[in-house]
């Protein structure tokens, strides 16, 4: 039984990074496809498309920071907490990355026709980023109370 609990603890430590990476990959792919499509239709501003396509990559960075924060000796006492924090933080980052990718795709689709709305079109993606930051910050705050912090 203890082995399973310990495995869950390690899963929790690695989850935010791994699940965050999956989310960032999907999010960047969605936004990237929109960027490539928009490049076919427009004559310039390609850098903006590429930059916006990379926005969901921030999720894996949050995941890496959470992983290092959670990284400690896994014991039966802290394994459950590590799993709960790590897995659900990763899950939140996954969804935030995917939907941020879709928001970026919509933004690219909109500002390719009206470049003047570039800033405004980023608002939905920025709001989603805000929710991811909540998950990130509170994962760090809660992890401070988990036994075994270095």
């Amino acid at each position, binding site marked *: 039984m203890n082995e399973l609990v310990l495995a869950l603890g390690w899963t929790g430590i690695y989850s935010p990074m791994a699940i965050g990476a999956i*989310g960032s990959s999907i999010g960047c792919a969605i936004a990237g*496809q929109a960027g490539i*499509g928009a490049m*076919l*239709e427009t004559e310039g501003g390609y850098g903006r498309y590429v930059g916006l396509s990379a926005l969901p990559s921030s999720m894996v960075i949050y995941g890496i920071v959470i992983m290092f924060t959670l990284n400690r000796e896994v014991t039966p006492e802290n394994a459950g907490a590590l799993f709960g924090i790590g897995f659900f933080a990763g899950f939140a980052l996954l969804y935030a990355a*995917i939907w941020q990718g879709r928001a970026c*795709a919509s933004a690219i*689709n909109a500002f390719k*026709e009206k470049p003047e709305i570039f800033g405004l079109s980023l608002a939905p993606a920025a709001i989603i980023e805000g929710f991811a930051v909540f998950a990130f910050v509170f994962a760090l705050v809660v992890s401070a109370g988990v036994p075994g912090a270095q």
Partner: protein
Amino acid sequence: MPAVETHQDAYVALIASLPSRETLFVAKQAPLSRLKLDQRLRVLSDEDSATLKMIEDALDWRSLPMKVTERDVINRSRRILQHVDNETLQQIVRDRLEIRTCIAALRRRALGEGAPSKDTPWGIGRWVDHIARNWTEPTFRLDGVFPWLREANRLMREGDTVALERLVLAEADKRLRRLAGEHLFDFEAVVIYVLQWSMVDRWSRYNAEVAVRRFDDLTEAGLGRFASLSFEGEG
């Protein structure tokens, strides 16, 4: 773990590569040529391409041979509706066909025909029997479902076919726009785009003002120096 990505995302690049939709009746021409549109649509899978072609064929009756009967058109439309299993696409086709059914009923009535019998194939959709039952009512008692029918009935009686065509296209465009808001990066969005493109292209091709101006230019060019001659009886 829930499904994190759907097949919808494959359409993102295609939709983003299409120019924004032009406003119907305002645009002087379609946002891109059919040739260019077809080039962009090449990224669709064979199955999607076939479905799109089927839907376009179901709604574009200009390509039909003159000898085709109403029964053929109705049977073909029914086959297509059965073949398309996507709910939104079915709704798109059904909406357009129901609008045409209403117009067909108005035309028949304007020609003095009585209510069609149950055995006569004349329309398609949910309202065929209802329309036949309420044949003598100005709007077939469908005001609630099709608020534009009253205006269509008036235009039909006045014989203003251009305004009637405009009304019908505006209604079809309104329905497509409503659905477009729910579909951003999926196959339905591609179909909606292509159908809206067809309407803009169609309208811009038979713009009455342009036709009259072109006719005047051609007449003047043909008459040459005789264009300024006044005819007998002219003030």
